[in-house]
């Protein structure tokens, strides 16, 4: 009997993902022995450095967790504080929050799909080589991304790490005319987003399916972005303040980011596919139609098609932003007045990569006693490893370089944000 051949797939520094991560897969014969998606970006201790700070500091500090999705952190923090302090925002301010979040979805999704993920499908090492052959496609991506950035600038004061959001609302609200000026570029962006869905629909998708446990927010009337109840396709339906009763995080030796899991221990999926699967019915007519034309069913179980789902969500975000910009009137007040007191509050929004949960406990002066932030990439790590396991098993006949490529492509299905995932508190040093 011949000894089963051992193979190892190693990627020491993953390219085209946000942050520093690596991958290790060991294979013996026809069996996968081990899969480790390693995050070695150093931990960042945000939850610890928030302690003792005023409630009002949280949005701007947590925004620094990520340069791609600062709104997810700012709004998660704002909501949690408003929850703790018993404040409800009037609808116009909530609409403005939804508008800026659309901007974040557009710029984040466009960046990932066109510049980081599409090269995988078209066989290019990076978007520079892609732009050599398809300059028009890359030009469209940059212009679309700019539209997202512009929304962030108009509502948030600047495109990266906006400064205009605060607990209770905004420091100032944009002028009506400034918001109206978004309409023309958004009309163009809507068409560009439609073309994007069609473009990605033509890609070849590796044959791999998984029966995911999809976790996302859900609202009865609109596709979830800034708020909702927490639901899953397995029947979970809870208010966000029950998050920790159902989900937890564990430390694994090979990752500097905590691994999220259901309290029963199982992996789950957050992000575009989970959102789409749980909320297809609340997408706009146009988004649903364009998804169908792109060959997507109302439930998507091929993670490689996440690139189409992101394009559908980009289209939806353009539509929503247009609707909100068209309806915008300057609110009477930029923010609701806050009176600090002791309390505990929860916030949860749909970051481009999936749900981002915040919990804070405040003392009577409104200082943070305890902070907990659970970003989407932490939650997806377990599922990323499951997918890698399955994808490798299905592709054992591929040559080393092709297999490695396919593994990286699998990780990029998640658009992982590694800097976000390593914000966490605990660091265990093994000095033995």
């Amino acid at each position, binding site marked *: 009997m011949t000894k089963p051949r051992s193979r190892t797939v190693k990627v020491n520094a993953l390219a085209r993902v946000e942050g520093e991560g690596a991958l290790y897969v060991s294979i013996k014969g026809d069996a996968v022995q081990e899969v480790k998606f390693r995050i070695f970006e150093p931990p960042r201790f945000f939850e610890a450095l928030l302690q003792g700070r005023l409630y009002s500091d949280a949005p701007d500090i947590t925004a620094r967790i990520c*340069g*791609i999705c600062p709104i997810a952190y700012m709004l998660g923090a704002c909501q949690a504080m408003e929850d703790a302090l018993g404040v409800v925002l009037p609808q116009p301010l909530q609409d403005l929050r939804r508008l800026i979040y659309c901007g974040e979805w557009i710029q984040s999704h466009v960046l990932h799909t066109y510049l980081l993920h599409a090269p995988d499908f078209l066989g290019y090492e990076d978007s520079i080589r892609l732009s050599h052959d398809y*300059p028009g496609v*890359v*030009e469209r991506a*940059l212009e679309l991304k700019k539209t997202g950035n512009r929304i962030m600038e108009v509502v948030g004061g600047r495109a990266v790490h906006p400064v205009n959001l605060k607990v209770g609302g905004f420091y100032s609200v944009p002028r009506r005319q400034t918001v109206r000026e978004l309409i023309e570029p958004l009309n163009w962006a809507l068409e560009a987003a439609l073309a994007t869905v069609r473009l990605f629909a033509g890609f070849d998708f590796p044959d791999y399916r998984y029966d995911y446990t999809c976790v996302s927010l859900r609202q009865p009337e609109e596709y979830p972005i800034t708020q909702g109840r927490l639901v899953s396709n397995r029947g979970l339906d809870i208010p966000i303040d029950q998050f920790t009763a159902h989900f937890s995080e564990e430390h694994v030796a090979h990752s500097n980011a905590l691994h999220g899991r259901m309290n029963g221990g199982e992996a789950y999926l957050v992000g575009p596919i989970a959102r789409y699967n749980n909320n297809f019915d609340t997408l706009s007519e146009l988004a649903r139609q364009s998804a169908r034309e792109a060959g997507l069913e109302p439930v998507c179980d091929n993670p490689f098609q996440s690139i189409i789902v992101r394009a559908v969500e980009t289209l939806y975000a353009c539509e929503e932003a247009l609707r909100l910009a068209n309806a915008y009137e300057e609110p009477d007040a930029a923010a609701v007045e806050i009176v600090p007191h002791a309390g505990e509050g929860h916030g949860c929004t749909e970051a481009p990569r999936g749900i981002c949960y915040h919990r804070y406990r405040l003392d009577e002066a409104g200082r943070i006693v305890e902070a907990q932030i659970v970003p989407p990439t932490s939650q997806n790590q377990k599922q990323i490893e499951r997918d890698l396991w399955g994808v490798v098993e299905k592709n054992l006949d591929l040559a080393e370089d092709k297999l490695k490529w396919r593994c990286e492509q699998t990780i990029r299905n998640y658009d992982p944000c590694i*800097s976000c995932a390593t914000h966490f508190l605990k660091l265990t040093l093994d000095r033995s």
Partner: protein
Amino acid sequence: MIVAEKPAVLIIGVGNPLRGDDAAGPAVIQRLQNRLPPSVIALPLDSDSVSLMEAWRDFERVILVDAVCSGAVPGFIHRFDATRTELPRGLFHYSSHLFGVAEAVELARQLGRLPERLVVYGIEGAGFAYGEGLSAGVAEAVEQVAHRILVELGE
């Protein structure tokens, strides 16, 4: 009414002032403040490099400064004529998101969006850990690059 002359040259210093020697680019911009003719604009940039293309859209001549990590002695000054030669990838330090300077410049080249003249200075950094403050060699190099840019502009 005096009509201001349209600035002819853009100088960009790329880097995160909170990441040690990554601050070299913005530090050069700081050194140049108040020493430049009105036809020159100097701009620090701490965001994704795709915005470079936007930044230099209306300029024919651009000088860009960034920290690099090539294994050379800290403070070593690289100078590239980017209009003529491709920038070496993997040299320009970038923290996380998306693109470094080299990638952005090459993307712009592919899209025909390079300025007519683009010179890139790379200052070899010693460390890029969290925190403010340049290492001694890099602080020295910042002075030199600022000086060389002033000389270049005068030529």
